[in-house]
């Protein structure tokens, strides 16, 4: 696998040099107006078409504010947005098209194009809050058909900033992406995608994911920053016959009112060969890392090496569910997570951010990290190494309590059809780690620390076959002699 990643990086470097040699075109030469008012969609589209026909190059946006609706990037064209230039989304919903192939709205589309990119230190700002609210008006007037579920237009009826589909050799670098009306940027069934040094600030409306990589092959995301209302770095698999694979995420920072880094929710095909290194997640409402195989897809060969999770509601959530599997059997196996330091706060970690995450699944005390399969679909071969997790403790049995009796443990629901979220089971019986329906779970050099006393043990295993604890330590005030590892219906547990 290391070899695969190396090849990937070499490919990416080739990709960049390839694009550097191309010719530059000033968008103003095509008549674009950077006054913050004029809608430039048609001009930008013509410029792209022209550059594409002329053999490729960069369409350069010099300082100014260029308003636009939807347009399509074409092969061998890079949008280069200089520092001081902003590509500003029109707030008129009618200025955006829903691509019939993609089934989604976006400002910048690319469909089946090769060697494309977006670069420069400028800004792409969707102004999604206003656009989405304008859309709501038209829906309410009966001019656009949308069920307005949860009082918001369906996410496919709100424009993203970027949606690339079935494109090869894509480079996104240096840009700032702000405030789309829906997800921020989707790369769907693309091959060879490099995302480097981008800054994402999107807390403007519901479903503001930072980046969504869907069923792509050959992806490097590095040196980037994501501050988002919904999931920050998100891998998805929409197609049961496709797979998201060969992915490197390196040196990124995420902040989210949902999850930091997530596989899923849509996970039909699966996720394979990932290396996630040097990831920082902070002020994040849900999990620093969520791997969810709930739609029949697989998750395998995943390495997380280097995670710092600070003021984040949950450290890890590994989950098999059976939501939309349609005959396939979901799997989650061969995952190594190492070199992790995590602090879970007692208070709401994303308080005060725009579009704060919804408080749900109460009453429950602070939730543990969890590895939760299903009785007949088990999570397998998970290694946790060099990890320190700091919890607030302070659970209150009068508020919520799940004890260690078989009755209480068996009463924890399976929830196989539910949307996977670390909090979905409400109160869990451990304060550090809860494992259920899993095989071969290995802890090496793991420290669990509770800052205040908790009524629960640190680790609870229910229906676990094969687990090893080597160099695992626990710290909890006034808890001398407390049995911090509790086994239930489990076998092959080796504690050193």
């Amino acid at each position, binding site marked *: 696998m290391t070899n695969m990643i190396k090849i990937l990086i070499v490919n990416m470097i080739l990709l960049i040099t390839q694009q550097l040699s191309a010719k530059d075109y000033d968008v103003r*030469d095509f008549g674009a107006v950077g006054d913050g008012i004029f809608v430039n969609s048609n001009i930008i589209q013509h410029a792209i078409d022209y550059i594409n026909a002329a053999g490729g190059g960069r369409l350069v946006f010099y300082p100014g504010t260029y308003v636009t609706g939807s347009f399509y990037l074409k092969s061998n064209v890079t949008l280069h947005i200089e520092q001081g230039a902003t590509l500003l989304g029109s707030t008129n919903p009618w200025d955006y098209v829903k691509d019939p192939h993609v089934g989604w709205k976006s400002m910048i589309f690319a469909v089946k194009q090769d060697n494309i990119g977006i670069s420069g230190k400028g800004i792409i700002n969707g102004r999604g809050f206003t656009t989405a609210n304008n859309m709501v008006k038209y829906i309410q007037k009966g001019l656009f058909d949308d069920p307005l579920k949860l009082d918001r237009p369906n996410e496919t009826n709100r424009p993203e900033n970027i949606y690339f589909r079935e494109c090869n050799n894509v480079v996104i670098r240096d840009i700032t992406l702000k405030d789309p009306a829906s997800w921020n940027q989707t790369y769907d069934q693309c091959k060879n995608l490099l995302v480097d040094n981008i800054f994402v600030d999107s807390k403007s409306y519901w479903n503001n994911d930072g980046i969504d990589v869907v069923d792509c092959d050959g992806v490097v995301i590095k040196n980037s920053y994501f501050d988002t209302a919904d999931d920050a770095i998100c891998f998805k698999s929409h197609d049961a016959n496709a797979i998201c694979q060969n992915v490197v995420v390196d040196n990124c920072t995420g902040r989210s009112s949902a999850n930091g880094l997530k596989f899923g929710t849509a996970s039909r095909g699966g996720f394979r060969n990932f290396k996630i290194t040097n990831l920082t997640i902070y002020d994040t409402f849900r999990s620093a890392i969520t791997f969810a195989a709930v739609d029949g897809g697989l998750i395998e060969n995943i390495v997380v090496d280097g995670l710092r999770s600070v003021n984040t509601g949950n450290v890890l959530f590994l989950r098999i569910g059976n939501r939309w599997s349609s005959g396939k059997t979901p799997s989650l196996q061969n995952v190594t997570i190492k070199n992790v330091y995590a602090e879970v706060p007692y208070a709401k970690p994303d308080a005060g951010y725009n579009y704060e995450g919804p408080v749900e699944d109460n009453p429950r005390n602070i939730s543990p990290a969890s590895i939760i399969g299903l009785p007949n679909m088990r999570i397998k071969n998970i290694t946790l190494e060099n990890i320190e997790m700091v919890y607030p403790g302070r659970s209150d049995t009068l508020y919520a309590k799940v004890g260690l009796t078989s009755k209480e443990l068996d009463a924890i629901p399976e929830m196989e059809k539910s949307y996977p979220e670390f909090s979905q089971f409400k109160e869990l019986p451990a304060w550090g780690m809860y494992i259920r329906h899993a095989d071969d779970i290995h802890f090496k050099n793991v420290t669990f620390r509770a800052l205040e006393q908790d009524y629960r043990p640190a680790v609870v295993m229910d229906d676990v076959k094969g687990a090893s604890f080597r160099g695992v330590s626990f710290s909890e005030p006034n808890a001398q002699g407390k049995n911090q590892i509790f086994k239930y219906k489990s076998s092959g547990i080796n504690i050193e």
Partner: protein
Amino acid sequence: MKKFFFSFFVAICALNLSAQTDYKASVFGCMSDGITLNTQSIQTAINIISSRGGGMLHFYVGRYLTGTIFLKNNVTIVLHEGATLVGVPSAYDYAGLPGVPKGLIVAHGQSNIGVVGSTPEYQTNMDVIGNGIIEGQGKSVRKSIETQIAKGYLNETIEQASPALISFSECTGVKVTGLMLREAAGDVVTYNDCKNVETAGLLIESKDIAGSNGLVFSKCTGLNVTNNFFNVSGKPIKSSANSKEVKSSDNRTFAGSLSKITK
């Protein structure tokens, strides 16, 4: 909930009900400030009105900036006195259709369509012409086109790229009446292969660009051209081929009355 709103919306529209359903432009988000580019809002309005069986799209006092809009079956644009559709001065915001020259308002194969002016409410019993306005900004549009061609970015001739104000082809039941049409980048009104066309009460003023013809038509059947004033740099009326049942009367220029169109 949505139905409730929708019925309200219909009720609002019905307040003005005459023979056809009336829709106000602001409902679709069209802005009368002169700086908001309304192309997609107007197009959406036309699409929705046509898909609901047709009606009148009313523009009241204000300047509505737009690029090419495509008129569709059973839709009439009403420009009330003081309302101006303003052509955006940008080469790439204009389009035609296969076989149809570029225009600000374009239609191909549509029936029962119109662009009409309306008498102001405080003037009654007067024979007013030239009310609502279509302002083509021909000079600026042409400048944009020429610049783009000179740079090699636009691979069209100036004639191909210059939009008329109104370009209709293979349409049936067309009304263009009671408007002031100003400064086209190309010809002002062009009809090709249209049937039953009424063109009356137009004040056509287009002289910023050389060779801007007022009314150009070919292969039309049933064309009525009445009570129009032409102040154009090209020919007031230019008919190229094979038109039948053409009636004309009381058409004028600064130099005097135009002779009747033969053919």
